[in-house]
């Protein structure tokens, strides 16, 4: 019998090791797996490379992981957000490395990483400072940049419902990077509001097939970043 459900967020992230590449889903707070990130802070792994669209806000979730000095590098498209002070402070004091990637290139690099494609060409960023040091090639008279696929050791993702085989559906625009990060990481960990038995999700509507998911943990009432920030919460 296949059962990918684990009992707690702590169990789900227990083997994250120092130096791991950790992909973290979410676009702003939509899809941000706060409980898994907080469990990772408790777990203690350090020198992490985080792949995520943003860098969190306030002092909770992703921003709290950064503030706890567990992250040496972020690969990111937009590290500035309202209420975001942790990353700017670390960056300006030279304590964190930033690889800035256009958002669509970031998404395609992750997708390619999960799809077995080592590199691809994109028109985004041609002729800009983000093209520096990258191979440019012309196809049909237009210039493109070569970009590399991106793989993770772990992915932390937030879904709405998962079954014990790891099939996942999401909530609205919280889907964002979840499905592609699940494909690109060796160990993909998804927190969901509800875990159901196989058959509990119609195969026609499965968004992330279970083959891409290693662990599912039920977090019935996940918190939202904005609520914690508004309440002045600082984690831990």
């Amino acid at each position, binding site marked *: 019998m296949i059962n990918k459900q684990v009992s707690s967020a702590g169990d789900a992230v227990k083997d994250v090791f120092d130096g791991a590449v950790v992909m973290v889903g979410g*676009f702003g*707070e939509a899809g941000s797996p706060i409980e898994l990130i907080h469990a990772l802070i408790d777990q203690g792994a350090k020198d992490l490379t985080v792949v995520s669209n943003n860098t969190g806000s306030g002092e909770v979730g992703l921003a709290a992981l950064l503030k706890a000095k567990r992250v040496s590098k972020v690969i990111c498209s*937009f590290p500035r957000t309202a209420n975001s002070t942790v990353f700017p402070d670390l960056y300006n004091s030279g304590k964190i490395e930033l690889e*800035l990637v*256009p958002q669509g*290139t970031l998404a395609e690099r992750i997708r390619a990483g999960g799809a077995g494609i080592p590199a691809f060409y994109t*028109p985004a960023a041609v002729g800009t400072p983000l093209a520096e040091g990258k191979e440019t090639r012309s196809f049909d008279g237009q210039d493109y940049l070569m970009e590399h696929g991106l793989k993770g050791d772990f992915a932390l993702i937030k879904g709405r419902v998962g079954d014990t085989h790891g099939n996942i559906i999401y*909530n609205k625009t919280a889907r964002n990077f*979840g*499905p592609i990060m699940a494909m690109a990481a060796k160990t993909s960990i998804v927190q969901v509001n509800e875990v159901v038995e196989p058959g509990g999700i119609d195969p026609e509507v499965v968004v992330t097939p279970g083959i891409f998911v290693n662990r599912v943990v039920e977090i019935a009432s996940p918190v939202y970043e904005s609520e914690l920030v508004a309440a002045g919460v600082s984690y831990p």
Partner: protein
Amino acid sequence: MSEHTQAVGWTREEMASRLAHDIPNGSFVNLGIGIPELVAKFVPEGRTLIYHTENGLLGMGPTPAQGEGDPELINAGKRQVSANPGAAYFHHADSFSMIRGGHIDLCVLGAMQVACNGDLANWSTGKPGAIPAVGGAMDLVAGVKSVFVITQHCTKNGDPKLVERCTFPLTGLGVISRVYTDLAVIDITDDGFQLVELSPGVEFDYVQERTGAALLPQQSD
């Protein structure tokens, strides 16, 4: 002082309205954050546009009523929105396939500088200490069929935003086809900036003096 501070040209709303009238019925449109978002309020009656937001929604609707939103139903500016009947959610790689694959008809963006060859700078001043953040701008300008800029004609300091060559870090090369400002509508052509329309009461010379490159006069039909 009053004669110096008197408003000249279109307001932000009038700029947005002027642009909205140029979007054909049925277009797939991505609106950037700020003045571009206003465009949706001025679409002429009888036209339906389908709004794309790059964080994974096609068929984006207006801001929900107080208490009816979902923190996980947001736009690219991370503000709560709604989903219109017929909307679809999708992941980021699909969303940028719509953009890069040329499936989106129009993108409207703000700008720091636009050059007369269509180059755009809108993501970074390049100043030390500024946190670089690019988001989806470079993908949008590289992939969407038409890219319009909507912006004040000059900076708060009075410097032209329409220039011969961008001095800020570029977002894309030769990507802008038209600019809507408080003073005029201007096309980017092979010959440079081409005036399409002046805002009411504004003279050609007034716009040329505030433009950092040659402005070709309006063509008569």
